[in-house]
Every structure is written in structure tokens, then in C-alpha cells.
């Protein structure tokens, strides 16, 4: 097990290296030129060249890449072209809101969606099942920003329970944190919940037709015990795969959610950086996202052990 984890972690290194190369090439092929943006409206071509030289943008691409990669290995992601702040600082400022938003979203989604999926499977074909599935289709189809606006209109403006926008650090004011994170987590969670609920229902339906479930019922076990201990536990492997893969959806959704709710997270940092071709920032953020994704996949793979004793690493 430990050996497996170490092997998997080592395997992330070539993946990250490939991502780094790919992102770097992709960015430098884009038509935008940060030197021109910086130079402003009156710069002569010579001044633009001078800025390119200062930014190291006129060196051959492979040199630029090696320079960046070398610094990266020392933990230096470079500085934002625009604000002059170190990329690690900018990312550091933004990690907490995005991390918390993602975790709260996953928490809400899992706590709500798995029971809903189980109930829908158990009451298959009834109005309960149909209601859950309708909600799931709704959650999956309506764009995040529309749900976000609806939640702002309802939860903030009509009821006045939650603030419209912003973020409070969990370490500064827990109450403020909860009130700020609730609506964005619900908005972002809608798609994710729909995905998990549908997957739970589908795998539960398969499992519920298995012989051992009939045996469990025949032994006189209570329905709750059969559903949770026997059926759900066996259904959890595909469900946890969905949970892991769904994180990719979240990363996309985080950008929109953070924009709608004005949360200063990594998603918005990415968009701002992309719109201004702030190379060092984009590269840094994408690396962080990729690494997170690779790590999550590892966690999902490891979680199989909990649900299926036949799986050994």
C-alpha cells in the first residue's frame, strides 16, 4: 500500500512535466503579446522591444521554458507580469477560498445526493423517484450562473439570510464564513449533486437485484441495514469514481461561481490572468489545478480499498 502510494506519487512527476510543457507551448502560441499591453498607447516599437527584453520574452522559447522550469524546481513560479507580485503569493492569497468552496460543495453534494440516489433506487418508479430524477435533470441542465443569480435573488435579496457576494476566511470568522459560502456551494453543487444522485441510483438498482440482497432481506434484516450495509457499500466503487471525476466539472464551475459571487479564488485569478495573458500566473495556476486533479484521482483509487476488500494495492 505505502509502496503503491509512493509509486503513484512518483508517476505524477512525468505527468506534471508534460502538463508544464504543454501549457507553456499553448500560451506562447496565443496571439496576445503582454509586452504590447504593458507598453500602452504611445510606445515606440523600440520601447516594446525593451519591455520584451525585460520580461525575457525575446529569448528563444526553449530558453524561456528552461529558465521557468529551473525556477519552478526551486519553488519560484516567477512574478505576475502586471502586478509584479510573486505568483506564489497570488496563488497563496487565493487557495483558501477555492479550497473551501470545493470542499463545502463536495460535502453538501455527497451528504444530499447519495441518500437521494439511494431513496430513488429503493422507490424506483414511484413519484419520489421521478421527483429526484427531475431535480437531477434540472440541476444538470441549468447553467451555474443562472442558479447563482436565482439563489442571490431568493436567499439574499428576498429572504435576507445570506450576503450577496464576497468571502470571509474560515479562520477569522466562522459564522461569516458559513453565511458567505452557503449560496456559492449550493450553486456550484447543483451539477455535481445531479451527477452523483444519478450514478448512485443507477448502481444501487444494479446491486439491489443481486442475490445477496435478496438473502439479506430473507434473513430478516431491516431495510435500512440492507440498503446501507449491503447494497450501498458495494455500489460505492463506481460512485466514488464519479465523485472523483466530477471534480473536473467543479474546477470549470468554480470559475463561474467565483465570478458570480465575487469570491477571490483561483478560478477568477485564472480568468483574469488569461484575459491579460499573464503567462507566469496562468502557468502557475494550471500546474496547481493539474496537481490537485492527479492527487484526487489517487485518493479515489485508494478509497476503493475501503469499499471492496478484494482490491489490494
Amino acid at each position, binding site marked *: 500500500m505505502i509502496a503503491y502510494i509512493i509509486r503513484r506519487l512518483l508517476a505524477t512527476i512525468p505527468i506534471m512535466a508534460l502538463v508544464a510543457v504543454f501549457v507553456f507551448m499553448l500560451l506562447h502560441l496565443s*496571439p*496576445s*503579446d503582454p509586452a*504590447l*499591453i*504593458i*507598453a*500602452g*498607447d*504611445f510606445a*515606440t*516599437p523600440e*520601447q*516594446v522591444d*525593451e*519591455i520584451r527584453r*525585460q520580461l525575457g520574452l525575446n529569448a528563444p522559447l526553449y530558453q524561456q521554458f528552461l529558465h521557468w522550469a529551473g525556477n519552478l524546481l526551486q519553488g519560484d513560479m516567477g512574478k*505576475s507580469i*502586471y*502586478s*509584479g*507580485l*510573486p505568483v*506564489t*503569493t*497570488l*496563488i*497563496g*492569497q*487565493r*487557495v*483558501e477560498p477555492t479550497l473551501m468552496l470545493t470542499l463545502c460543495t463536495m460535502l453538501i453534494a455527497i451528504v444530499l445526493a447519495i441518500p437521494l440516489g439511494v431513496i430513488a433506487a429503493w422507490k424506483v418508479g414511484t413519484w419520489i423517484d421521478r421527483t429526484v430524477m427531475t431535480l437531477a435533470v434540472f440541476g444538470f441542465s441549468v447553467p451555474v450562473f443562472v442558479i447563482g*443569480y436565482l439563489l*442571490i*435573488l431568493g436567499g*439574499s*435579496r428576498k429572504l435576507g439570510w445570506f*450576503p*450577496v*457576494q*464576497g468571502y470571509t*476566511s474560515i*479562520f*477569522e470568522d466562522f459564522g461569516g464564513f458559513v453565511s458567505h459560502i452557503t449560496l456559492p456551494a449550493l450553486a456550484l453543487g447543483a451539477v455535481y449533486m445531479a451527477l452523483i444522485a444519478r450514478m448512485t441510483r443507477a448502481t444501487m438498482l444494479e446491486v439491489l437485484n443481486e442475490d445477496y440482497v435478496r438473502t439479506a432481506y430473507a434473513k430478516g434484516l431491516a431495510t435500512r441495514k440492507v440498503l446501507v450495509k449491503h447494497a450501498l457499500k458495494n455500489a460505492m466503487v463506481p460512485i466514488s469514481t464519479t465523485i472523483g471525476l466530477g471534480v473536473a466539472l467543479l474546477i470549470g464551475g468554480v470559475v463561474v461561481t467565483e*465570478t*458570480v*459571487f*465575487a469570491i*477571490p479564488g483561483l478560478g*477568477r*485569478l485564472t480568468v*483574469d490572468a488569461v*484575459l*491579460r*495573458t499573464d503567462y507566469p500566473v496562468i502557468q502557475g495556476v494550471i500546474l496547481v489545478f493539474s496537481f490537485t486533479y492527479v492527487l484526487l484521482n489517487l485518493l479515489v483509487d485508494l478509497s476503493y480499498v475501503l469499499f471492496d476488500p478484494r482490491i489490494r494495492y
Partner: protein
Amino acid sequence: MTKHNGFNYLAAPMRRLALAGTVAAAAGLGMAAPALAESVLKMVPHADLRNIDPIWTTAYITRNHGYLVFDTLFAMDENLEVQPQMAEGYEVSEDGLTYTITLRDGLLFHDGAPVKAEDAVASIKRWGQRDGMGQKLMRVTESIVAVDDKTLKLTLSEPYGLVLASLGKISSNVPFIMPKRLADTDPNAQIEEIIGSGPFKFVADEWQPGNQVIYEKFAEYVPRDEPASYAAGGKVANVDRIEWRYIPDAATASQALMAGEVDYYEQPAVDLLPMIQSDPGIKVETVDPLGTQGVIRFNFKYPPFDNKLVRQAAMWSVQQADYMYAIMGDPQYFEEFCGAYFMCGGPYETDVGSELLREKDIEKAKALLAEAGYDGTPVVILDPTDVPVAHGQALVTAQALRDIGMNVELSALDWATMTSRRAVRESPENGGWNIFPTWWLAADQLNPITNISVAASGENAWFGWPENQKIEDLRNAFAKETDLEKQKAIVEELQIELYDFVPYIPTGQYYQPTAYRDNVSGVLKAPVPFFWNISVE
């Protein structure tokens, strides 16, 4: 990072995560909770502050930030006249070539150092390398020196009528005065610390690009005695703290204002105004009495717009109302027609020569195209779809040119990409362009020197690179002239030439509304959003 750096985040959240449970204040997190008696203005700025050096960039958001933190020697008042601000007074020698400027008492930088003449000299020199008007001033400046701590002397090599207009320039780049040690920074690099002598201090360790900028009242600032008037007069800070909260989504920003989470929303989207105005606790008004000028710019290097007949045809084919309804919608926010290249309401307003802009005449336009021998060459219009003001202008222009039989290609991109692409000097088929849309604040367009879109010095001119010696001669004559009436005569002659040459189409003059809650008072009418004089209950 150097020792003197304002960007040292002792309290990076990464570290905070690691310190979870320990009091973050220990990490120097200037705890964000303001004391009870503090008055705080929470506002939504029109853009994210990403560069903090107002000499390095012309971005309006950085200029607005500059006005909070820095002060200026001279400043423009509401009569568009230049008044002393940091200056106690000034003297001009008999021959008009030497300006001796004295600083007023009590000027202090935020780090406690007194403001000296050498700081002003270094600041003006750095600004003079970046700003268009500054460069012009430096070209006719023989020397600028500090005589003593209180006095600086600017000596010209030839008579120049715009010395004070340059030093009292209200919009980008504003000649802000910085400590010499910062002003000695390479003009092509950003200063690494924000220390000014203005009414507010920049709180470096609370700056989070893309999220918030914090300013605190500078208690030692001594305002002038005169009432505030544009950038001139007494800058009295009535709030203890100003929080710029960047909310990128217009609908969310409007809701935040309506919910009272912010007090002031600098530039609400015009299509959301009816919703905002339905709230009786919110006031919507245009605080900039001068407004903004829409601009459709041609590329003079390549056909078809290298021919002035084609540019005239384009002007005959459009009318300002079409543009204004497309980008502003509500007629209360724009002029029905403004035929002045140097703005209606400005000191050089005249509509001489503007018939081809005032009237829309498709037949005349077609006849001009035929005369020019237009052969169906494609016209590449850059269309920044993420900026409504620019996008609307691009679409209206495309339709008008199609209506007179031109072959139009709209090239959709984002604003940032457009700012790169408009600098490309290659032909349109090789990644260049024929037309791009933009806008300028009236404050930037008030005269032939600040309005760089009329400059016609060829390769050194603004994007589009027009070349016209007569225009350049008239601009130089204007700059040397010190008599207002004679200046006006020059401008009339210049404008006739402009309407013949068509350096760009002025697509109309419009006024950006601002919205604020009824707990805010003392908002100044000015072309720049100033934050002194404002009180918050």
C-alpha cells in the same frame, strides 16, 4: 524583492492555513475589522487595480488610485483652469522661459519624510519620459532643477503655452509627485512601493489583486483652504478607510449595492440601471460632467482607408445616434450630436466642418467610394466582444459600411487581444487590421495636444499611424500659443482639416452614470472619481 517592498505578504493565506488556530494577527495581518468609530466607504471600482504605478500605465483605474495616494503640483478646476495644488505659487520670467515654482508648507510623504523640490523634479522627469504631453514638455525644456528644498525651476528652450496645462493634467498620465527614491525608478519598470503625499495611504499588505484594495486616511495631510473643485482645491478626507471591492459581474455588483453591502458603484451597466433605480435608497447620477467620446479608428497604412475619400465615405455612412443607442440606450446619457473633435462643453468646442458627421448620406458615401475606386478590398474590423462600448461600435460600423457596399470582415476577439493586435503594423491579411473601436474620456480629448488620436506624425503616431504635416504644424502652433482666443482660432482651422482628413470618427459624447446609496454624501462632480470630500453615515 528588495528591502523596501510594499508587497511583502507576511500573511499569505498559505501560511495562514498552516497557522490555523493561531491568531493570524501575529503574522502581521493588519486585522481587517475596522474599529467601531471608523467610517468606511465600500465601493465597486470600474476595473481591477492590477498595476499600482500611475506613471507606468495609462489605465484609468491606476490613475484613480494615484489620486488617492499622490498629490500634484498643479491641478485643473471645474472651469478647466489650472490652479496650484502642492505649489504655493509660481512665477514666470519676463521672457516666458523660466517657471519658478514654490512648494507650500506642511507637505509630508506617508513615510514621514517632508516633500522636497528634488522629489518633484525627479517625479516630473520620470513622468516626462512616459506621458505624451510630458514628452512634449521635456522636448522644449532646457533644464528642471531644485533650487532649494522649497523651490524648483523649469527653464524652457523656446516659448511653450502648455507648461501649466501639462503639470496640471487631470488624466493619464497624471504628473503625480513621488519621493525621489521611487521617482528614480526606470520609467519602463514599476515602482515597488506606493508612498505618496496625498490624502490617503495605500495599505500594501491588504492589497489583493482581483479582489480588494484598501486605503486609509493620511492624518498628516494638510488640505488647501479653497473648496474642492475637480482635482484642485482642498482634498479633505472625510472617511477613515476606503475599500475597493472588485466585483466582476455587473448583476452581482448591482445586487450588492441594493443589499447595502457596498455604498458606491462607479460604473453600473446601463442595462441594469432600471433595476438599480427601482431602489429608493440609491441615487444614480453622472458625476463626470465632461463625458466620454466614442472613437472609430482607421488604419492609414493600408487600403482602403489609406485614401481619405474612403474615410470620408465612412463618415457619411454613419450617424452618432446609431452608435449611442447601441452602446448607451437611454438618451439621457448622451448628446444628441457633438461635432467637436475636442469635446462639447470643453474650451475648444466648435462644430465647424462637421456636416459629413452630422448628416447620414448613403448616396454621397457610395459616390465617394466610387470616386476613390474602391475595389471590394476586405475591411477587417476588430470587434472586442467582452467590452460592450467597443463591441457596439464595431457592429454599428460594420453594418454602415456594408450598407454602402464595402466588404466587411468582423474579427471577434477579447479586449486584451485587441490591444495587442491594434499595435501590429503588418497588413490586415497578415494579422493587422483596418478599423478598431475604442473610447476616450473627455478629459483626455480636450485639446489638440492631449487628444492623441488627432496626432498625425506617421509611424510615431497612435495606432493607425496617420501622417499629415498640416495637422502637426497646427498642433505645434497651438502648443506655442499662449492666448486663448488665438488658440481657438487655431483649433477651428485644425478641425476643418480634421474633417477633411478624418483621423477617426467621433461616434458621440456620452455620460457614464454612477450609483451610490443615500448614506453617501459629498460626491464631487468631476471627470475622475475623487474620494475626498465624500462622507459616509
